[in-house]
């Protein structure tokens, strides 16, 4: 494995730099506008904060595509002291996910939380701040700055859960908050030790100082940071807060939590172990341990998803399971199959995000329409909400990893990588995970198609109608999850260009 980037490659043109800064600042300014009373400032804030993101990202993507990864030194302060933004294909991909999933989920939320009125007054500033915080997190290259971003993400995501207002939601928020605060402290303690040992807070300069640092301190620091991130990323067995929190949140919030918020921690784990600590220095054991946790998540989450009686809880446990795939790739970092494993892992990040957001939005529509998301109440859903069911099923195809979805491609690449690198235990875990996913998705579908006992079914009059646009939001995300399987070639090429450990050598 080549050494990671140690000197700044280049700084892009001013226009790209401004686009990068705008990606963080527009939602932030939008949040300020949304705090103001009245409908107009709220609507203006939402539209101005979210709508320009894809356009800005096109500019950033093209720049990264043509010129490679780049730095932006904020305020002109250079690396050891200043805070840098760093953009590479992985960061670009994450930003796109935030823009697309955040945008579509926002369109869905527009109906339940009308801007500028009632709960909408509280919802939108938090939502825009969350988007801004995630964008900042994906771009920041400074370990302490990342701590601030992680806290911002947590402190905006949890109130959004609490907005659901139910006892379960408040209780889940409370538990999530306490564990998240503990996680942040562990992370902060690790960063303090790492700074003391290496003399830098820059993610991409830490590796320079590792040689001279006392190994005990470095090991402790890395362990603490990883533990904090695993807790925030709800990686098995530290996932206990996730299912309740994700299942009790309002629909669009669940979508963003499962598709994006937990991924922020996984993203940082990637950055830490694949960029800051080159695979040659990092103990092979640590990467294997992380993969074992991933395997545990995949199996345990899959089994628990099978046991749930409520649709949203099935989907939430499925998130616990699907996050496992993202850690499974780590032990292959030093093998020749690494580029394929990396493509598979990153593609899983993308396709799971799209599919899971689609599932949660569809589940929100179903819950709204039927007044219940118990699997036993879902019978004859194909007649009552055919389009929501269709979205759920299509997203399910991607979660299971059936062709031609994005999930299929991700899992196929992962299988190929494990095959080539000879990691047979990973291969077995992958297959078992996919079988479990198929079982819980089919269990949902079977429940929706049941027709027995007409007296037990709720009368049709109880079904509330859903705005067509909300159904469309779920459908659109599900279609994107499916389309990810078709339009993959340029995307995979882009991802491959950013494989950690390769792009430092031109």
């Amino acid at each position, binding site marked *: 494995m080549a050494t990671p980037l140690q000197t700044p490659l280049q700084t892009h043109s001013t226009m790209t730099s401004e686009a990068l800064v705008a990606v963080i600042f527009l939602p932030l300014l939008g949040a300020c506008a949304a705090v103001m009373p009245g409908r107009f400032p709220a609507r203006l804030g939402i539209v101005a904060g979210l709508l320009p993101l894809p356009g800005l990202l096109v500019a950033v993507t093209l720049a990264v595509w043509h010129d490679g990864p780049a730095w932006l030194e904020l305020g002109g302060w250079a690396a050891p*002291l200043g805070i840098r933004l760093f953009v590479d294909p992985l960061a670009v991909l994450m930003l796109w996910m935030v823009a697309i999933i955040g945008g579509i989920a926002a369109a869905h939320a527009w109906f339940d939380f009308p801007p500028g009125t009632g709960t909408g007054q509280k919802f939108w500033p938090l939502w825009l701040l969350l988007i801004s915080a995630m964008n900042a997190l994906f771009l920041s290259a400074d370990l*302490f700055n990342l*701590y*601030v971003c992680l*806290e911002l993400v*947590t*402190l905006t995501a*949890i*109130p959004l859960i*609490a907005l659901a207002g*139910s*006892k*379960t939601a*408040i*209780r889940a*928020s*409370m*538990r999530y*908050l*306490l564990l998240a*605060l*503990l996680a*942040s*402290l562990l992370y*902060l*303690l690790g960063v*303090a030790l790492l*700074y*003391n040992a290496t003399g830098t*807070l820059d993610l991409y300069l830490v590796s320079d100082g590792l040689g001279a640092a006392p190994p005990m301190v470095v090991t402790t620091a890395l362990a603490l940071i990883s533990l904090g991130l695993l807790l925030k990323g709800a990686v098995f067995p530290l996932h*206990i*807060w996730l*299912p*309740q929190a994700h*299942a009790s949140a309002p629909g669009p919030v669940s979508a963003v939590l499962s598709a994006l918020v937990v991924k922020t921690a996984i993203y940082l784990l990637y950055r830490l172990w694949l960029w800051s600590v080159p695979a040659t220095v990092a103990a092979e054991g640590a990467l294997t341990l992380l993969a074992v946790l991933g395997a545990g998540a995949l199996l345990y989450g899959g089994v628990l998803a099978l*046991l*749930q*009686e*409520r649709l949203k*809880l099935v989907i939430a446990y499925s998130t616990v399971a699907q996050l496992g795939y993202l850690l499974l790739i780590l032990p292959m970092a030093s093998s020749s199959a690494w580029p394929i494993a990396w493509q598979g892992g990153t593609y899983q990040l993308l396709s799971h995000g799209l599919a899971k957001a689609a599932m949660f939005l569809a589940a929100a529509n179903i819950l709204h329409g039927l007044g219940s998301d118990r699997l036993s109440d879902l019978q004859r859903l194909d007649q009552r909400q055919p389009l929501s069911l269709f979205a759920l099923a299509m997203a399910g195809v991607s979660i299971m990893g059936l062709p031609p979805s994005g999930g299929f491609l991700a899992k196929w690449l992962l299988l190929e990588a494990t095959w080539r690198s000879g990691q047979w235990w990973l291969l077995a875990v992958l297959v078992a995970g996919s079988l479990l996913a198929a079982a819980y998705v089919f269990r949902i579908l079977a429940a929706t198609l049941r027709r027995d006992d007409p007296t037990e079914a709720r009368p049709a009059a109880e079904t509330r109608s859903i705005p067509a646009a909300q159904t469309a939001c779920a459908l659109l995300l599900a279609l994107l999850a499916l389309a990810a399987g078709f339009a993959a070639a340029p995307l995979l090429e882009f991802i491959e260009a950013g494989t950690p450990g390769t792009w430092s050598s031109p």
Partner: protein
Amino acid sequence: MNPTAVIYVLTAAAIFGIGLYGLLVSRQILRQLLTINLMGGGIFLLLITLGGGAEGPPDPVPQAMVLTGIVIAVSATAFALALLLRWQELSGSSEVDGDAVTDAVTDALDDDE
């Protein structure tokens, strides 16, 4: 590391440890919140000590980090207290009870409004 720094580091470790112990044994949310703040205090003390510099002026970076950290700790605590008040209004209890792992399942079943 000079002897004074050793005392500070040990104190920081003790504060962090007391906080962690308290977090693990206490059942009340308010206590858990206080213990988390205590752990934070330990970390801040450690940061300041490590940045103290045996000779020459102290390193400003850890001081900036501690300042930011305190701001975050205050806002997180404020939010947690607000959430706690809401929880007490709804449940009349100041504990989040039950076994976390099995809760998600049973909870969802009880709380069927």
